């Protein structure tokens, strides 16, 4: 049953990802990206990380994609012709990607990607949201604070960058 759901999510995710990079208009791309991100959230649920799935939906689908849509509106780009879409280095790029595809496939089936066991048992993993919460506020409190400051800086920086110089009124 799980497997069936995984294949559904995976196929939709890959298909929408391909649609993202082939769509003719940026608005379409953005909508396909939303679909793809939702599939990734579903994959997180399959991995028994409901917390991650929620974060994924809130931040990516809720915040990031809205930003993208705003940007699309501000930049006002319409549909593009096929020639406009492609970069001049497409041929070497595609060749490189093909080689990478083969190599990574070989790597994946060579059995070299293995996993050693970790500290948490199956039972402990069942309440992983609690463990993550604790770790975030104890062991990872410094990175957590730093990331929050980073977000604040990004917020202020984005506003400062986009704001136009206003003529000062006396």
């Amino acid at each position, binding site marked *: 049953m799980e497997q069936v759901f995984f294949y559904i999510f995976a196929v939709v995710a890959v298909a929408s990802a391909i649609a993202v990079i082939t769509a003719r208009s940026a608005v379409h791309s953005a909508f396909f990206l939303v679909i793809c991100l939702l599939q990734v959230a579903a994959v997180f649920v399959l991995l028994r990380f409901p917390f991650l799935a929620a974060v994924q939906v809130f931040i990516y689908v809720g915040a990031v994609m809205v930003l993208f849509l705003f940007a699309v509106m501000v930049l006002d780009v319409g549909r593009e012709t096929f020639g406009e879409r492609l*970069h001049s*280095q497409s041929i*070497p*790029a595609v060749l*490189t*990607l093909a*080689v*990478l595809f083969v*190599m*990574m496939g*070989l*790597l994946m089936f*060579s059995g*070299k990607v293995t996993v050693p066991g970790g500290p948490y048992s199956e039972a402990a993993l069942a309440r992983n949201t609690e463990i993550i919460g604790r770790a975030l506020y104890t062991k990872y409190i*410094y990175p957590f604070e730093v990331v929050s400051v980073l977000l604040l800086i990004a917020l202020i920086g984005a506003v400062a960058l986009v704001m136009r110089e206003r003529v000062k009124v006396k």
Partner: protein
Amino acid sequence: MIDYVWLIPLLPMMGAAVNGVLCSRMPKKAAGLIGCLSMGIAFLISVSILVKLLGLAPGERSVEITVFRWITSGSFNIDISFLVDPLSTLMILVVTGVGFLIHVYSVGYMHHDSGFGRYFSYLNLFVFFMLMLVLGSNYLVMFLGWEGVGLCSYLLIGFWYHKKSASDAGKKAFVVNRIGDFGFILGLFVLFWSLSGHGISSLGFKEVFANIHHLNPNIVGLIAVLLFIGAVGKSAQFPLHVWLPDAMEGPTPVSALIHAATMVTAGVYMVARNSAIYSMVPAVGEAVAVIGIFTACLAATIGLVQNDIKRVLAYSTVSQLGYMFAAVGVGAYTAGIFHLMTHAFFKGLLFLGSGSVIHAMSDEQDMRKMGGLHSHMKITSTTFIIGALAIAGMPPFSGFWSKDEILWESFRGGHYLIWAVGLFTAFLTAFYMFRQVFMTFTGECRADSHTKEHLHESPSVMTVPLIILAFFAIVGGVVGIPFLAGGSKLHHFLSPVFGHGAATAAAAVSHGPGEAIAAVAGEGAHIAESAAGAAGYAAHSSLEFILMGVSVAAGLIGIFLASLMYYAPMRALAPSFLRPEVIAGRFSALHTLLYNKYYVDEIYDAVVVNPVKRLCAWSLSFDLGIIDGIVNNTAWSTRLTAWFSHKFDIYMVDGLVNSLATAVNFNSGIWRRLQTGYLQNYALIFVLGILALVVRALMG
């Protein structure tokens, strides 16, 4: 209280942050208050740490305080942690104490400057990095401070960046320091690499010093040399001394704090901190001492003929730093640190005094236009003369005790040449300092009438620090007087730090025989002896008194000679061949050589700077030629032949240097084609990198 040692660097950092963020929004008073207050509190904490440390038994006076884990990479961990031991306590006392006085002085000196808040922000930031340097308990924290003080020095030298000479001087200081830092970091790499071969992946001082004897002496020698290159850059020793005199373009309190009292002594501190390494390789120690004493003499001779009041002091600083290196080089670490401390007092005092003079003279720095200032500014001139007496090594001023200890240690260690050169330099020091005193404060005032009208004593916010520093310049030597009851207090205080070197050397003996190591053992025994301090002094005291007399006599002769040549009442008595202009005329070649600082800057220009510039210019023309050749197909063949004949010419005429340049150039001609400026070309190269990694994983 020792647990709160992290407050000491934190306070200046907070001061720097507040002043830096709010500098343009804040009244000057608030900026000055924040700067001074953060330093004052840091100084009080340092004093309380000293008190706590003195309450501990001598064997336990080394406490490591870990604040947080900085870097984790596998089994390799680096903490932000502080080492509180006698050496670092002494250093933080000097840094925060002298730093506090200089901050207070700056409030007066920089009063009219528009960059007041920026200035205090930089100054506090500097103190923060300096404290990290001296307090760090591992090499990386030390390196953090080491680079940070370099940055702040650059910022403060170029503080008046609209003046081209100032921004050039800042760049010069930065680049020259970089050469030294390169050696320093290579030293760290070698140290880490060789130690990890023995299963020790740590850069903490304790672990490194406890295991350094496992290493091959040649490797240790290499590490010592590389670290010393760093010290040469930071402490302005020959051949990297050229930046310090130019650094005088910065505000005078900056020269006092960074380029006299604290930052430039970081090299001495570093060598002393690494006494365990240096005492393993006496040959490197000898080299350190020789370079030190050579620099001392070289800089002193240049100082004889300079006319800029701050440049004389700058060369004097280079010279005194040479003394300190001579001391740590011969294994007399305590003497070196002692001189570092007293030097911080009297050289800080001299610089602040010269700042007061410059302030009064409406920013005039040429001593030929000064004179007779004693009647206008009594406090400044009195304190300045105290400082000059201290640096000239007159008893009972502090400089006498420390300088004499260096000379005595080098004599006792059998380094007679170093002793002799040091003695001669002491004579030169006394001479040029009193030449400066007489030219500035006595005789007729040679300033123009406009400046004369504005002559005034500085406000009390500037004179009070002068008086306090003068007090310490007089009595600062008390802690190191060898023949008081119980011997030198400083020796006892510092011996746990430097006794370690002897123990390491002794351990080296037990770990492996061999001639080199036997030599190490001899040196180790010598250090153990000098660390024992008082006992050794008793036996040699009569000889020591004679040598003291000799060095005082050298200083007195210097002062007397200076007074004959530059002090008006004595000039009348002097024979005519002692007139400065007569001497300058007779030895005009020597005078020109000295006046132009042995042409070191010019030599560097000719050997390093200009070839690089020429390389750049030539590569430009080369690039243009090649690209035009490709573009203009019609002209291509003509250009090609012209290019070949041109190339032939250059190869035949300019030879090896240019052929090397050609290779570099040709190479860069290819590689610059890669800089297409297209973002996605770069991204493609990333992907190629990933591909390489995947292939590597597939193979391995």
